[in-house]
C-alpha cells in the first residue's frame, strides 16, 4: 500500500467515527474533532496527490491515464461516502433539534405551571387557616370563642341550678314553719273541742236542773237545749276545720315532694359536660398551636419552592447551549458539503488534471482556514451548566 491508500483509509475511518459519534449523541466537540481529523486526512491526501502530479517527467507521462482514472474513482468514492454520511448527520441534527425543542418547552411549561399551582395551594391553605382562626372577619366566631361561650353557658346553668336549690330549700324551711303553725292550730282546735264538749255537758246538767224545777224551769229547759245544740254545732264546725287543715297538710306533702324535685338536680351530667368543655378547650388550643406551626412551615416552604422552580428554569438554558453547539455542527457540516462539492468538480478529461487537483486542494485549505477562524470565535465555550449569566429566558 502506498501513502495515498493510507490517507484514504484514515479519511474513511474518521468519517465513520464521526457518524458513530452523531448516532450515539456524543458531544458536539467530538464531532468537531473527528471532522477536523478527517479534513486533515483529506488535505494530506491532496498534498500527496499534488506531490505526485507536480513531479515532472516519466511517472506522469508514462501512464497519465492510469493515475487520473484512479484519482477520479477515489474522489468519487470519497464523495459518495461523504454525501451518505452528511445526509445522516443532517437528519440527526434536525432530529436532535426537534427533540430538544419539544422537551425543553414541555419542561419549561410544567415548571411554570408548578409555580402557579404552588401559589394557588399556598393561598388555599392560608384561606382555610383564616377560616379556622377567624382572622379574616372580625364578626365571625372562632372555635375558641364557641368553646368559651359553652363554658360560660355551663357556668350560668350551674349557677341557676344552685340558686334554684337554695330558693327551694328556703321555701322548704318556710313550709316547715307553716306546718308548725298548722300544728298550733290543731292544738287550738282540740281546746275548742274541749270547750264544746264541756258546754255540751253543762247544757245537759242545765236541762236536768230545769226538769227538776218543774214548770218554773220549763223556759230554762228550752235555753239549755239551745245551748246544747249550739255546742253540737260548734263540734261539727271544729270537725270541718280539722278536715280542711288535714287537706291542707296533704297539699303541703305534695308541695314538699315538688320542692324536693326542684331542689335536687343531679350534677353528674353537668360534671361530664364541664370536663368535655375543658377537654375541647385544650384541643382547640392545641389545634391553634398546630395551625400556627403549619402556617410558619408553609411560609418557609413557599420561597424554597419558587427557588427550586427558578433553579429548574435556569437549568433549562442548556437548550440554548446545545442549540449553539448544534449550530456549529451545522456549520462544520456545510463545510463538508462544500468540500464534497469541490471534489465533484474534478474532471479527468480536463486539459490539466494536475492543475485542477491543485485548485481543489486550494479550495480545501480555504475551507480549513474558515473552519479554524470560526472555531476561534465559537461562542459556546462553556463546559459546565453552573457557569455563565442567566438571561436567556
Amino acid at each position, binding site marked *: 500500500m502506498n501513502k495515498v491508500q493510507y490517507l484514504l483509509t484514515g479519511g474513511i475511518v474518521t468519517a465513520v467515527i464521526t457518524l458513530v459519534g452523531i448516532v450515539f449523541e456524543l458531544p458536539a466537540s467530538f464531532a468537531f474533532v473527528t471532522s477536523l481529523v478527517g479534513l486533515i486526512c483529506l488535505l494530506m491526501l491532496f498534498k500527496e496527490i499534488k506531490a505526485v502530479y507536480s513531479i515532472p517527467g516519466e511517472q506522469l507521462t508514462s501512464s497519465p491515464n492510469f493515475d487520473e482514472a484512479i484519482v477520479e474513482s477515489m474522489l468519487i468514492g470519497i464523495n459518495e461516502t461523504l454525501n451518505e454520511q452528511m445526509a445522516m448527520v443532517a437528519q440527526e441534527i434536525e432530529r436532535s433539534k426537534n427533540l430538544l425543542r419539544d422537551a425543553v418547552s414541555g419542561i419549561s411549561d410544567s415548571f411554570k405551571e408548578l409555580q402557579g399551582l404552588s401559589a394557588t395551594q399556598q393561598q388555599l391553605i392560608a384561606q382555610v387557616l383564616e377560616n379556622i382562626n377567624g382572622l379574616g372577619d372580625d364578626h365571625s366566631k372562632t372555635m375558641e370563642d364557641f368553646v368559651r361561650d359553652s363554658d360560660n353557658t*355551663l*357556668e350560668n346553668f*350551674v*349557677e341557676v*341550678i*344552685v*340558686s*334554684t*336549690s*337554695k*330558693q*327551694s*330549700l*328556703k321555701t*322548704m*324551711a318556710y313550709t*316547715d314553719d307553716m306546718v308548725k303553725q298548722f300544728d298550733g292550730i290543731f292544738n287550738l282546735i282540740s281546746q275548742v273541742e274541749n270547750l264544746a264538749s264541756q258546754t255540751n255537758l253543762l247544757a245537759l246538767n242545765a236541762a236536768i236542773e230545769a226538769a227538776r224545777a218543774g214548770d218554773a224551769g220549763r223556759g230554762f229547759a228550752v235555753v239549755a237545749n239551745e245551748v246544747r245544740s249550739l255546742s253540737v254545732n260548734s263540734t261539727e264546725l271544729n270537725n270541718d276545720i280539722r278536715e280542711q287543715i288535714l287537706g291542707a297538710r296533704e297539699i303541703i306533702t305534695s308541695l314538699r315532694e315538688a320542692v*324536693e324535685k326542684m*331542689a*335536687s*338536680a*343531679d*350534677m353528674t351530667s*353537668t*360534671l361530664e359536660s*364541664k370536663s368535655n368543655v375543658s377537654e375541647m378547650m385544650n384541643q382547640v388550643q392545641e389545634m391553634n398551636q398546630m395551625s400556627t406551626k403549619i402556617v410558619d412551615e408553609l411560609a418557609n416552604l413557599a420561597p424554597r419552592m419558587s427557588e427550586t422552580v427558578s433553579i429548574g428554569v435556569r437549568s433549562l438554558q442548556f437548550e440554548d447551549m446545545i442549540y449553539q453547539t448544534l449550530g456549529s455542527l451545522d456549520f462544520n457540516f456545510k463545510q463538508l458539503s462544500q468540500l464534497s462539492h469541490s471534489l465533484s468538480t474534478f474532471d479527468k478529461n480536463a486539459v490539466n488534471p494536475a492543475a485542477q487537483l491543485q485548485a481543489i486542494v486550494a479550495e480545501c485549505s480555504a475551507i480549513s482556514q474558515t473552519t479554524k477562524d470560526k472555531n476561534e470565535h465559537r461562542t459556546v465555550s462553556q463546559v459546565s451548566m453552573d457557569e455563565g449569566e442567566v438571561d436567556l429566558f
Partner: protein
Amino acid sequence: MALKKFVSDDGKKITISVDERFDFSVHQSFRDAYIDADTIGSEFILDLSKTTYMDSSALGMILLLKDHVEKSSSSLKISKPNDTVNKVLEIAQFHRLMTIER
C-alpha cells in the same frame, strides 16, 4: 343518722359532718344543725370527708349555711371533700365564695 354535729366546749366551733350521700334527704337535720348556733364570731366546719355523692340541693344547703354564717359574722370552711365532690364544688364556683380545705 346521715349527719353528725360536734360543738366545742366554748360553743364557738361547730363541726357538721355529712355521710356518704349529701342530698335533699338531710336538709331538715342539716338546717337544724346550724339554725340555733348564732354566736358572733363562731367557726363553722363542714366535714365532707365521708361524702361521695352530692347533688344541687347540697349546694343550696351550703349556700344557706353560708348566709347564716355571714349573719353572725362567723367563718365557714369546707373540709376534705373527695375528688368528685370537689369537682362539683368547683363547677359551682364555691372556691371563690368560701375556703375549701383539701
